[in-house]
């Protein structure tokens, strides 16, 4: 008899986690960021509840600054899964015109951290699936699969519930919520292998293509729309680039690449000598403890 492969074990675990949440939470939601991890998470949800559509909506906490190709993918993915898509924009950030060019870290705080809290409160969601992985970052390595947040969405790393076997304690008081990370035990390579094995649709930006870019502060940024303020002397140049992670386009560095197929992307990834999140400016704020601090404040 054949043992399960590592991908089969990871898949089974993620599906088990999602079903536990649906069985025990009142109003679950899946946070959908349109990236490759979200794509895998959504695919797993479709598998978990097949033939029913996943019994919860998708929520995109939008910043209005995502790549255009991401917005195109968003609607299609929700439709294919037969799920409702909720999009939340922080009205205050909208009103104040918060943007990554002028506002630095405030951009992430207002659109994403505050926006997420607003959306969860607005719809009264008590459990939110997120696509974070433990291999992404050191403080993630210790986060539980079921991560509890106080009524004000705070995270207390010292007061986490022990998780034994595959038993998850989903009990909570009114107002408290759970962030659930079904991909906790996946690595980046697992994600890519699974995308290939399952034929999951991902945003084309992950594959190399000629795109208009400028080089700024050591990062290659894509000029995705005309809101990109070019500095004196800057001129968009067509370069063959791809993205290792996708976020707000002005904050997401591209890598020069000729990898136009998934195996080529994985090949480049395995041959590269830098860790995954290097292309993303966000983790470098406030030193090494950046992510841990953001999480205590309510960032995913």
């Amino acid at each position, binding site marked *: 008899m054949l043992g399960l492969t*590592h991908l089969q074990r990871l898949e089974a675990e993620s599906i088990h986690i999602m079903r536990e949440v649906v069985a025990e939470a009142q109003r679950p939601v899946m946070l959908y960021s349109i990236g490759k991890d979200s794509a895998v998470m959504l695919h797993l949800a479709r598998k978990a509840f097949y033939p029913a559509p996943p019994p919860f909506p998708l929520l995109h906490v939008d910043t209005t600054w995502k790549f255009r190709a991401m917005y195109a993918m968003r609607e299609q993915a929700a439709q294919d899964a037969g799920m409702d898509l909720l999009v939340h924009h922080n009205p205050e950030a909208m009103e104040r015109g918060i943007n990554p060019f002028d506002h630095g870290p405030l951009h992430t705080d207002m659109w994403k951290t505050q926006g997420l809290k607003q959306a969860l409160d607005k719809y009264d969601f008590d459990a939110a699936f997120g696509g974070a992985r433990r291999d992404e970052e050191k403080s993630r390595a210790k986060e539980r699969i079921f991560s509890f947040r106080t009524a004000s969405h705070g995270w207390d790393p010292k007061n986490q519930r022990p998780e034994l076997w595959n038993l998850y304690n989903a009990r909570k008081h009114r107002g408290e919520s759970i962030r659930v990370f079904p991909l906790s035990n996946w690595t980046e390579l697992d994600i890519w292998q699974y995308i290939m094995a399952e034929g999951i649709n991902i945003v084309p930006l992950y594959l190399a293509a000629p795109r208009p870019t400028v080089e700024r502060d050591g990062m290659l940024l894509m000029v995705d729309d005309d809101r990109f303020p070019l500095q004196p002397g800057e001129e968009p140049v067509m370069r063959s680039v791809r993205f290792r992670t996708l976020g707000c386009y002005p904050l997401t560095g591209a890598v020069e690449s000729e990898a136009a197929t998934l195996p080529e992307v994985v090949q480049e990834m395995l*041959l590269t000598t830098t860790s995954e999140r290097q292309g993303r400016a966000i983790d470098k704020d406030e030193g090494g403890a950046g992510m841990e601090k953001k999480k205590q404040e309510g960032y995913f």
Partner: protein
Amino acid sequence: MALHSEDRAYRPDALIAEDIGAYLQAHQNKGLLRFITCGSVDDGKSTLIGRLLYDSKMIFEDQLAALEADSARVGTQGKAIDFALLVDGLAAEREQGITIDVAYRFFSTERRKFIVADTPGHEQYTRNMVTGASTADLAVILVDARKGVLVQTRRHSFLCQLLGIRHLVLAVNKMDLVDYDQATFDAIVADYRAFAASIGVEDFTAIPLSGFKGDNITAAPSAETPWYAGPSLMQHLETVEVGNDIAQTRAFRMPVQWVNRPNLDFRGFAGQIATGVVRPGDAVRIVPSGRTSTIKAIETFDGPLEQAVAGQSVTLTLADEVDCSRGDVIAAAENPPEAADQFEASIVWMGEEALIPGRAYWLKLGTQTVSASIAAPKYEIDVNSLEHLAAETLSLNGIGVADVTADRPLVFEPYADSRALGGFILIDKLTNATVAAGLIHNALRRAQNIHWQALDVDRAARAALKGQQPQVLWFTGLSGSGKSTIANMVEKRLHAAGRHTFLLDGDNVRHGLNKDLGFTEADRVENIRRVGEVARLMTDAGLIVLTAFISPFRAERELVRGMIPDGEFVEIFVDTPLQVAEERDTKGLYAQARAGKLPNFTGISSPYEAPEQPEIRIDTTRMTPEQAAEIIVAQVLGEWSPTL
């Protein structure tokens, strides 16, 4: 080997560059090994894990650069790279220089993918280690070669054994600090072997290592240990047979997580297979109900499967419309698991607040959640000496053996046979914290209301769940005789004794169910008939029903008696002479009746037919209501209480 800069960079597998397709194909089918590392800060555990990550090429240039900077600033290894910094995650921990939680690390080689649970080794972090061990297939137990087998080594080994880890690696670390001396290594191994046998560990693999220098980590033997003939740590991790497939050889069991019902034509049972293999056409039994059916299909997003095995998450459909919901277990028809409501279990206490014996906690086992209480421990285990100590309770990190009583039967298997159906957690009902982990040894008695034959949920089943004999305590007597007063007292006492009761009183019924009825003889008969029907339904639900109605006519009382199964109708005659009742006249009704304002008033203008052979007769002229209640309760609990 000390580190040289040219070693440092991540160097990928040659196949990646040559033939990515072949590489991916090979890696697609790798297995997974989950292991835990046990040791204290001083044993070099974090250094060892950092070294495994480094040697399996999981450390990238940028991480290495950050690591070098951190090592220079806060490292404990002088100018050398401090691998411990690579794995110590949280800011608070970095400051204290110790790991205080469970961290999960990932690395893979050509042969396997690994998930490492990295937990602190101090006694005050026993709960963290138990958590990490619960999902591990293998444990690496670190020993400092200079110190040998210590109290903590014994503690770690015992916990791994308790959590059912069958593969232990004794990693004798820091061999560089004892000049790679074989005699030192052999003495430690012999010492450990003697101890291991005493706790039932049959086999282990001992490897001499230096995490700091890298000896016997990836290749063996290192030039420094020519006398060592075994595998390197990595070789052992890559090749050891951990027997994940053993679960497939056991009888089929799948705890039902969720019933998938997208439309009227589909009813699927979703769950993760705990043990065994399932195929369409297999005969299955739903436990605890005992109903049988056959597997119609194994439905997945990718189409129906020919078979599914332990570990997979699937959706099963059954050939018959049988009751089956979350918490039930679908099992091989001929070999189903037991159900019981009392167990003996090992309990690992994880809550800040100590165990309160007898208090109800939520117990979650598989997909079942029940209310359960833990008796005072039979003994606590000193995790250092492994002695059994007398204990009244268990506090944080305490481990003991105790009896567990659940409020309904749980489908289970001994933990030694099945982690999925033998391990449970306890949840504090007030704080919702996970306060304990439990490992079932065996049932103390088989639940009496579990039958392997199909069992309808009938009045007997409902009554058995409440642990009581349903009955109707029918109080009859004149207005003002004291029926309601006594019935109230009886109900309070029964309730305090843990019985499930309901009091139907003349007033509460006449304000609702019977508000359309008056006091004519016909209406009085109908009043009693309806009350009788309600009482009968309530006994079907398993309740002890108390009724307080004048119910003056013998015929109606007999009518009700006829509705209720034999022995369950208890007629209680609250015998108060008319004269006494009229003197009390608590509601002023007798005065109104005498004045002709209340027609058909029992005793005045309508007859009261006293019972001829009541089960209980209460003479209110000779006892207080309290005494009366005591007599009734004694009789109800004494004569009719079930033997549970």
